[in-house]
């Protein structure tokens, strides 16, 4: 069973988002990290880079595979988790905590409400088996 915290919002690309005012933290879900396996490298954008919704902002690589990471919401990168350069395994061990990827200043903070709730994400996971 995947761990799906109730206080977060989710995308069908298996990103989570946690909004604090107009700034949102973004990472990948427990389901995503389990599917990927041991994460060994994360390619993150630079502070100041701007992304539209559903645009790839980086990639996460496991021993076996690479997967793109998408911004669930449009905005500008205000902080990146540089710590992941040295400890990419945090994405596996603590995907909703120390394994966060970026913080984004959202163009439209209300857009968060349109994302999946934990219940909806859990339902979505059950449909993709």
């Amino acid at each position, binding site marked *: 069973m995947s761990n799906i915290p109730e206080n977060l919002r989710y995308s069908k690309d298996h990103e989570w988002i946690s909004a604090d005012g107009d700034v949102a933290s973004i990472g990948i879900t427990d389901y995503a990290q389990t599917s990927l*396996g041991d994460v*060994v*490298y994360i*390619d993150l954008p630079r502070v100041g880079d701007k992304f539209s919704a559903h645009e790839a902002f980086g990639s996460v690589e*496991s*021993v*076996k595979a*690479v997967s793109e990471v998408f911004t669930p919401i449009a905005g500008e990168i205000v902080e990146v988790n540089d710590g992941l350069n040295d400890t990419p395994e945090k994405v596996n061990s603590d995907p909703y905590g120390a394994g966060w990827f970026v913080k984004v200043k959202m163009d439209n903070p209300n857009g968060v409400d349109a994302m999946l709730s934990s219940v909806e994400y859990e339902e979505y996971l059950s449909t993709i088996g």
Partner: protein
Amino acid sequence: MSEELKKTPLNEVHRALGGKMVDFGGWDMPVQYPAGVIEEHMATRTRAGLFDVSHMGEIWVKGPDAIGFVNGLTTNDVTKLVDGQAQYSAFPNEQGGVVDDLLVYRFGPEQLLLVVNAATTDKDWAWITSHKGDEQVTLTNASADYCQIAIQGPKALGILRKLTDTPLEPIKYYHFTTGEVDGVEAIISRTGYTGEDGFEVYAAAENAEQLWNKMLETGKEDGILPCGLAARNTLRLESSMSLYGHELDDDISTLEANLGWITKLDKGDFTGRDAIASLKSSGLKRKLVGFEMREPGIARDGFDVYLDDKKVGIVTSGSPAPFLKKNIGLAFVPTEFANVGQQITIDVRGKKLLAEIVPTPFYKRPK
């Protein structure tokens, strides 16, 4: 999925262990277990790993002409084998490419066992049978009759010793014997695909579960882990061993793949010999090299290799190396650039990242 995947006799055991199953060349195989590829890789390097390789193909060649027949189909010299010895070899095609790579086991002067890759077993069988003329040999595709379990790593010998009366120390690398393992009749071969010491144990398919479970249980105190295909791949890549379909293929010769040591052009005639000889005399255009990434990023199979702005080659296998903690790979590059220290760049999804040609194997186990 229209076609049913093939299963080894250990399929249910893998599922019970939590193995993540994938389609590997038509076989339903565990790519990893819950411990994960890095743990499995490290267990094999430092303790022991257990691998189900029952999907590999086994073909018996028996009869008075067995040695001559196989010698005419393979690059290595079968006449050099003695009873109880195994040999790494390849089936070349008429153009000098490779149909498959294989192990040749000599049980006796009229009895050879060919162990071939899983995904190519049918192709190999068709190739071998179509090349049989009036030689006195009987060919048997016995792939479904056998399970094959590899126990690899510094603790492999100690674990297996607890399960057999057959003395294991005297079995030299690339030699084998027959004996009982946990009371089951088996072929015990000191071979592997990990770069570690270890054994590959062949037995009747019906004994697979017993042997697997017994080896896991016996190895528990030594920290043995079941290992999936992902760890098998990173282990062989760190040790620079070829994987068919990557470093070897229908249009790649053994010489290009650094397998000159199994290519005995002076042993007498064999299929593809003339093509390989002419390739050798005209000079190889490309060569397989090992590289290490010099910038953050991971090269993957099929990525393009550049020298300045010119595309010069292709990555055949690329991956993080869990034991070495580097990002490594094998690639074909033009022979004139195939030198240790040569800098190349690799197109990693649109970014050209620096890499350097390094000596292979990347990893060599301490003696």
